[in-house]
């Protein structure tokens, strides 16, 4: 069950909401927990038990950390829990990868017969949330949750368990456990957000998927122009898919009176790769910053290392080396978090190199611009920076999308060397890769609406502004979105169901 299926939107969510709404306030936390575990059971079956046991482990570790005053012991509990959680993540998520790798190394012809493990739903999300919670306890930024049900609810809250966003326990645990019925206006706003998310996912992302799947599956025979269009469309598709699902998750959470943090903030308006990642999957960026980058940068061994470099009169290196090392670790975690295989490691390293280059080149670039009297604070220069950043993102997206890593250089070379506009209009190209004229029209109009909404959002809070409009306007927007999903949605005859892309991580 995913957030865009009718069974979630028309059966599970309304049923859970009705039970929650009519429950006495003191039981609402338990109702939400029960709903979340039922949802989890639908997604992962017997793996729910593995999830509950993990939650209880985190709860026990948290309590132990709070009770002991000894700093060394606290560190030991934190390290043990983090190692155990990471091991569980690796075992569940990477079992197939390791089996394949072992077979390759030892040249086994036949599969070992080992059944791949059923992966608990959202394991990457709840594992990182759990590690974050324990780290917050260790650094004294949060208090341990004494009630295991409360911790389990925070970890399993059904709108966020599949695709996030990552949340801190301070942000949502109280609102979840003592959830209050939202007023009418907030319910309407939550409903609007769900409709908006559905529009992005069902109308745009699922339709774009038809084209990108066709072109990337035949990447060996597709022209450079087709591959470029597919890469562009995939970048927009991934945004519509992920942010659409997050909107549905946030809307569903708001129905229960819980505000989840936004995960996207007009990422394509970013002027640098670093800024892009502060606007794209923001909660993952914040997590790696707070639990990988800064802890490593400010760790005692790193400080000692800096001091040693400074003592040897390598001040410049002492300033840069810790930064680059922490950046490397953060991007490695980001890359490997995304999935199984070497491809995701390379994906992380690609962004590490870009970010490191950004840091290293910032000062020389500023000096150069000052020397040639180039004003970098102009709309024109901002535009150039945005196009450059989008280009880097596009190259990263191709890496993210390719079926095999070996396809990546082939695709890049073809895009660079085989770019002819006439290829788009030749028979057997743009209109013969699963999408017809009508589909392209819907995609163009839909992404234009998305861009306009993003542009408006940069100037004003669109949802609040809409809430201030008369009821007829609000109804009009909701009806338009709903009918757009019903009529233009990529579902039913001739369409394959498309699971949320980030749901697989």
């Amino acid at each position, binding site marked *: *069950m995913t957030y865009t*299926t*009718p*069974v979630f939107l*028309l*059966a599970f969510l309304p049923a859970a909401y009705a039970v929650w709404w009519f429950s006495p306030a003191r039981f609402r936390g338990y109702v939400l927990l029960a709903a979340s575990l039922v949802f989890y059971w639908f997604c992962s079956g017997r793996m729910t038990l593995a999830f509950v046991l993990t939650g209880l482990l985190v709860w026990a570790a948290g309590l132990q950390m709070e009770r002991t005053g000894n700093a060394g012991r606290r560190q030991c509990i934190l390290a043990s829990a983090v190692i155990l959680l990471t091991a569980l993540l690796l075992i569940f998520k990477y079992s197939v990868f390791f089996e394949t790798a072992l077979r390759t190394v030892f040249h086994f012809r036949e599969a070992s017969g080992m059944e791949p493990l059923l992966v608990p739903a959202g394991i990457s999300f709840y594992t990182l949330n759990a590690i974050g919670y324990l780290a917050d306890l260790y650094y004294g930024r949060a208090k341990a949750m004494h009630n295991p049900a409360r911790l389990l609810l925070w970890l399993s809250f059904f709108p966020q368990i599949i695709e996030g966003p990552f949340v801190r326990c301070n942000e949502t645990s109280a609102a979840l456990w003592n959830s209050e019925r939202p007023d*009418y206006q907030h319910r309407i706003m939550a409903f609007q957000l769900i409709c908006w998310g559905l529009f992005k996912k069902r109308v745009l992302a699922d339709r774009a998927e038809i084209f990108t799947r066709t072109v990337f599956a035949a990447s060996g025979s597709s022209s450079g122009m087709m591959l470029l269009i597919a890469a562009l469309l995939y970048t927009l598709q991934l945004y519509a898919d992920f942010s659409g699902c997050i909107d549905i998750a946030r809307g569903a959470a708001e129905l229960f009176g819980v505000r989840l943090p936004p995960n996207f903030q007009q990422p394509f308006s970013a002027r640098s790769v670093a800024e892009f990642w502060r606007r794209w999957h923001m909660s993952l960026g914040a997590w790696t910053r707070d639990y990988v980058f800064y802890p490593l940068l400010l760790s005692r061994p790193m400080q000692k290392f800096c001091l040693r470099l400074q003592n040897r009169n390598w001040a410049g290196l002492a300033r840069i080396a810790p930064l680059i090392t922490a950046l490397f670790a953060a991007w490695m975690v980001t890359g490997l978090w995304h999935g199984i295989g070497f491809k995701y490691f390379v994906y992380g390293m690609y962004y590490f190199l870009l970010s490191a280059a950004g840091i290293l080149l910032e000062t020389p670039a500023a000096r150069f611009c000052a020397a040639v009297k180039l004003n970098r604070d102009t709309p024109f220069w901002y535009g150039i920076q945005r196009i450059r950043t989008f280009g880097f993102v596009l190259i990263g997206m191709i890496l993210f999308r390719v079926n095999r890593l070996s396809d990546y250089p082939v695709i890049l070379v073809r895009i660079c060397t085989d770019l002819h506009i006439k290829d788009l209009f030749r028979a057997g190209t743009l209109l013969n890769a699963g999408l*017809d004229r*009508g589909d392209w029209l819907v995609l163009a109009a839909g992404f234009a609406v998305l861009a306009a909404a993003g542009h408006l959002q940069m100037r004003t809070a669109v949802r609040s502004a809409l809430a201030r409009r008369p*009821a007829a306007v609000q*109804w009009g927007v*909701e*009806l338009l979105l*709903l*009918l757009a999903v*019903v*009529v*233009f*949605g990529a579902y*039913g*005859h*001739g369409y394959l169901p498309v699971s949320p892309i980030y749901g697989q991580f």
Partner: protein
Amino acid sequence: MHTDQQRFWRHSIRTGCFLLLVTSLLLALSWVFAPRGNDAGSGTRHAEQRAFSAERRNSIDLFFLGDSSAFAGFSPLELWQKSGIASWVAAEPDETMSGVETMLKQVLKTQHPKMIVLEPSLLFSSSETASRILISRMKDAFSVFEYHDRWKTIRLQEILQPQDAAYHNHRKGQHLYTDEIAYQGKEWMVPSGQPESIRLAVSAELRSFLDTCRQNHIRVVLMNVPNASAWNSARHDAVQKLADQYQIPYIDLNLNREARLGLDADTDFADRYGQHLNYRGAGKVTRFLARWLQANANLPDHRSDRRYRQWNDDNLRYRQELEALDTASGRN
């Protein structure tokens, strides 16, 4: 408190009005997008199988329901030739139990069959999910969910036209597989230890389907056509258990198929996986069924009924097609 109650009612009425508006719009869109004709050109999906709407009301006594195994494996005009029973294949590819129930509702709008032969392969379809069942129900209520994609082709003058079921399918829904590809795989009915489990949602849909049949006084027979790719003993055992539970006749033609049907794995399949029978295999299955129906079901013979003259004409045309196929393959 008074204000709270007022607010509650005000919001409830607003929500009710909004839902009413959504329902009205869905009904309006369903009317707009519904195909005006019953042929494929008008946008009707699986028009061959759904063309029973063009037949005279209440003229068909037996319907075959199921997935692609059924629409390849039964030949209504072979049955007509042998027994005079008026039948129709309303089976569709990748069909599920919830889809069969939707189809039955469609059938009951214009026909009142006395018997349904259900091909039970679909009880194990992996496509049947809770969402698909819900979508089937939504399609029953609002056809826009089935035909929403027609926005690409629909024209204004088409919307203003009345409904018209003029398309006549002379093969009565049968999909004629003409390829002749030998099945060279293993024997698929190797005895198994345990019956395969049927998912709860599918069992519930089957129960609901049987209830609808009972309410409409329709007898149900479960009948498997030979299918090497989707059938095995574990599935047979599961369906046998169901048939015993609901006291429905069950015939599995995967068992003793050579002796009962004279099925030849070299010539009677249309693909190398043994998934679909070709027209010859379908003929053998249907001739067996004709004998079974004559012995066990009291369905009328309409061959000399003047109201069924068209069926004799259709049968003639069908025979000519088969002859042409046999000639092309060098059998005549």
